[in-house]
């Protein structure tokens, strides 16, 4: 409120690259005091990176900082840590809760900012021995809760709260900070029930009325229209639209979010191997639910045709990743899955692998690789264990001895085929770059010679060159070996270039299946159709 002529926040020409990979370019927008700004865009559009820059997160500094200026009240600022940002009056509510489970709401709201009373001992030993002023704590938390406008029990312990109240506790914590001028809410409604979400929206309005500016990130576009003064749409690291909320609609925003120029989707036609309805259904999934944290699948029914490449797309957290993880038995799942007319028991990775299914996980480091072992082991291990390949049988099969020669041969074969950059087949997997690690994961699956392959986020975190190589390898594998491929990706464009049909998952359900040539708008509408 010092200088009303300058807006509260100005972002000027913000740029950011991760090791040469440009993720943000020329971001410009302003936000006035008491305004609510809706920020939307597909996953990977750069929203969270932008917010990390604004909030001074460590990752940004560790990866070489950013370009451009951030101005607060007309003054240029540069936050080295989140604490600097807090100091300047910026608060952020992250997607993951940051609460102490055994503390009450009040204790969490005032965590590390508790009002204290001096005493004799603390005079001698320092102020960490000041006693807490419980009355004052109650008063302040009640004030913050009142400011928020949603009723929560300040004495309730977090671990026994419903999930929505945890979210409100987080918001109240930010509001309890006296300096708070700008509040960033990163998908706050994702965990809320409809009623709670409504309460949150009205609380956002009341915050704005009290002069606090809000940046509101969400995939629920109608919420943006209901509460925001202006909408900023991002795509591929650029701001593509910056318009007042009154002048736009859900359809417009969707188009801006996903919309590429129409001619690009022609690429899909080039491999056009469009299956008719008569193609054999090789896998049928019925009423699948999967308990994968953050990617819950609620009720998926899906048919996969023999020999096709089926894409599964959708926004993050909507459950697209849960489908392969559930079918392959890595997370608890229920429902029925039939493959080649045979029922596949769930929750048993071994049974799936035995029926010639294979899976390339999106989590390379945890699930995909033996980081501390050689490439040979990584590539040959599943095939050795499942199909007894690369083994010498001694004493009439009594002893199954590792055949190092065969392992080396197959590893070298895939190193050549997939152009894996490494010093030798003995190199440890952890020493490779992300793209090459991904190729090792593919090689591992190829070595199983499966009939059916799930590939989850095959291009996540790898550079452009490796990306096209990986996609090309998948297509080739599909064409030459006649393997059915289901590819799950957050990048719609990538799916449209690679797949025959694309299923869009929204709210843990299949929202619809479209041919790859369908327009971006149609995909966009499906993506947000059942978002919860």
């Amino acid at each position, binding site marked *: 409120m010092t200088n009303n002529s300058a807006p509260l926040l100005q972002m000027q020409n913000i740029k950011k690259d991760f090791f040469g990979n440009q993720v943000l370019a020329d971001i410009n927008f302003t936000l006035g005091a008491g305004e609510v700004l809706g920020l939307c865009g597909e996953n990977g559009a750069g929203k969270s990176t932008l917010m990390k820059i604004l909030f001074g997160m460590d990752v940004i500094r560790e990866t070489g900082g950013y370009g451009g200026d951030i101005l607060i009240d007309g003054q240029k600022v540069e936050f080295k840590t989140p604490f600097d940002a807090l100091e300047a009056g910026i608060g952020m509510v992250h997607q993951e809760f940051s609460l102490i489970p055994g503390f009450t709401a009040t204790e969490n709201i005032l965590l590390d900012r508790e009002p204290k009373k001096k005493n004799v001992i603390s005079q001698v030993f320092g102020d960490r021995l000041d006693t807490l002023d419980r009355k004052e704590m109650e008063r302040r938390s009640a004030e913050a809760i009142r400011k928020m406008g949603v009723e929560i029990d300040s004495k309730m312990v977090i671990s026994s709260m419903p999930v929505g109240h945890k979210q409100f506790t987080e918001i109240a914590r930010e509001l309890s900070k006296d300096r708070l001028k700008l509040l960033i809410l990163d998908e706050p409604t994702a965990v809320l029930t409809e009623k709670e979400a409504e309460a949150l929206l009205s609380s956002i309005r009341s915050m704005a009325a009290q002069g606090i500016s809000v940046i509101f990130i969400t995939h629920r576009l109608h919420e943006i229209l209901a509460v925001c003064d202006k909408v900023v749409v991002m795509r591929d690291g650029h701001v593509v639209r910056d318009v007042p909320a009154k002048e736009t609609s859900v359809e417009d925003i969707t188009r801006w979010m996903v919309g590429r120029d129409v001619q690009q989707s022609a690429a899909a036609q080039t491999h056009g191997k469009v299956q008719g309805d008569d193609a054999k259904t090789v896998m049928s999934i019925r009423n699948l639910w999967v308990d994968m944290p953050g990617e819950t699948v609620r009720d998926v029914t899906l048919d996969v045709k023999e020999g096709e490449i089926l894409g599964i797309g959708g926004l993050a957290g909507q459950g697209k990743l849960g489908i392969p993880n559930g079918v*392959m038995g*890595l997370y608890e799942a229920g429902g029925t899955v039939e493959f080649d007319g045979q029922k596949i028991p769930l929750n048993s*990775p*071994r049974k*799936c*692998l*035995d029926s010639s299914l294979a*899976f390339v*996980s999106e989590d390379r*480091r*945890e*699930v*995909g*690789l*033996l*980081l*501390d*072992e050689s490439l040979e*082991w990584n590539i040959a*291990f*599943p095939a*050795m*264990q*499942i199909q*007894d390949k690369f*083994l010498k049988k001694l004493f009439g099969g009594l*002893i*199954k*001895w*590792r055949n190092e020669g065969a392992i080396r041969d197959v590893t070298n074969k895939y190193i050549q085929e997939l152009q894996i950059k490494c010093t030798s087949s003995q190199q440890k997997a*952890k020493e490779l770059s992300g793209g090459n690690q991904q190729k090792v994961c593919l090689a591992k699956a190829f070595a199983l010679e499966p009939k059916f392959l799930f590939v989850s986020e095959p291009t996540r975190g790898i550079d452009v060159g490796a990306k096209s190589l990986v996609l090309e390898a998948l297509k080739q594998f599909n064409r030459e070996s006649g393997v059915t491929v289901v590819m799950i990706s957050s990048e719609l464009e990538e799916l449209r270039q690679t797949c025959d049909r694309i299923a869009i998952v929204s709210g843990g359900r299949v929202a619809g299946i479209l041919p790859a040539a369908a327009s971006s708008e149609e995909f966009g509408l499906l993506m947000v159709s059942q978002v919860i």
Partner: protein
Amino acid sequence: MHQVGYAIGLRYWLNKMGYPRLIISGFLLLLLIMTPFVGVNLPMQITNIINRFSWNGVLVLAMVPMIHSGCGLNFGLPLGVLAGLLGGTLSIQFSFERFGAPVSFLMAVVIATPFALIFGGGYGWLLNKIKGGEMMIATYVGFSTISFMCMMWLLLPYTSPTMVWGLSGNGLRPTISLDGFYNQVLADFWKIDFEKIAGKLDVDLGPLEFIKIPTGSLLMFALLAFLMWAFLHTKTGTAMTAVGSNPTFARAAGIDVDRIRTLSVIMSTWLGAVGILIYQQGFGFLQLYNAPNNMTMPTVAAILIGGALVNKASIGNVIIGTILFQGMVTLTPTVMNSLIHTDMSEVIRSIVSNGMILYALTRKTEGSK
């Protein structure tokens, strides 16, 4: 790979071996160099080291399977030791020495085996319930079982007069001499005794006559180590290593992680049982009650000194570690004693072995997790 000059540099060895192992190797080397100057009989000391290696080698080997499967350092070694003790005492009870000392030993191993399988199976089942907290719980499972067996040694109806208390006639003695049973049964097999050779050839070998090599024990260790090495090259062995390296990867590759872990615990326990029997036949006594407690720390320390990590170990680690640790144990008291007339060996051993374990526990760069 590296330039020769670089290999001589201190930093090269530091990176390759880590501080503690380098310090211990240096210390041992220093002791060895000093032996002639302080008037200690070097050949006798070397015989001592070889002997102690032959006693302890298999116990250290018992660490390998559990480290490989990611169960961590086997602080539950006492379970295996107790299985071995049951085998040993029962073999004496049933007087298998009637058929000769080797049979007595063999039967001890045979009888110990079902106990090791049962203990190991139960222990493995338990460790699968508490993944992540294995080491602390293993320690206390060891303690509880030892104190439980303390009661059992008193209550079980053993009758062999060599083992029970003379006066009351029931309850086992804490230390039982194995003379007349399986004492030295492996060590005497193809024993190379330079003194006897010198006597036969009628030549004077000087101090070399002190060298005696317990060939049988060493061969037994070599056999078990070879089997271990071979196992790690089989399909199941490969799966075990993968489970230790990254359990999630192994699960995704269709491995039953719990089954592999249980198998590794059973193997470790069995090797512990055989290990303690080999230790006894070399040492000459069977020690009951709280004695198994004293086996764990030196054994864990030995494999760590050999260069093993909390989730990576090789046969090489076992051999190097046992030699270094036992070398230190034998040389320190004698050299120190003749040098400063004080026996600080117990203290030094304690600092080295526990320090080694601490170092391994506090290292951030162990494995991917």
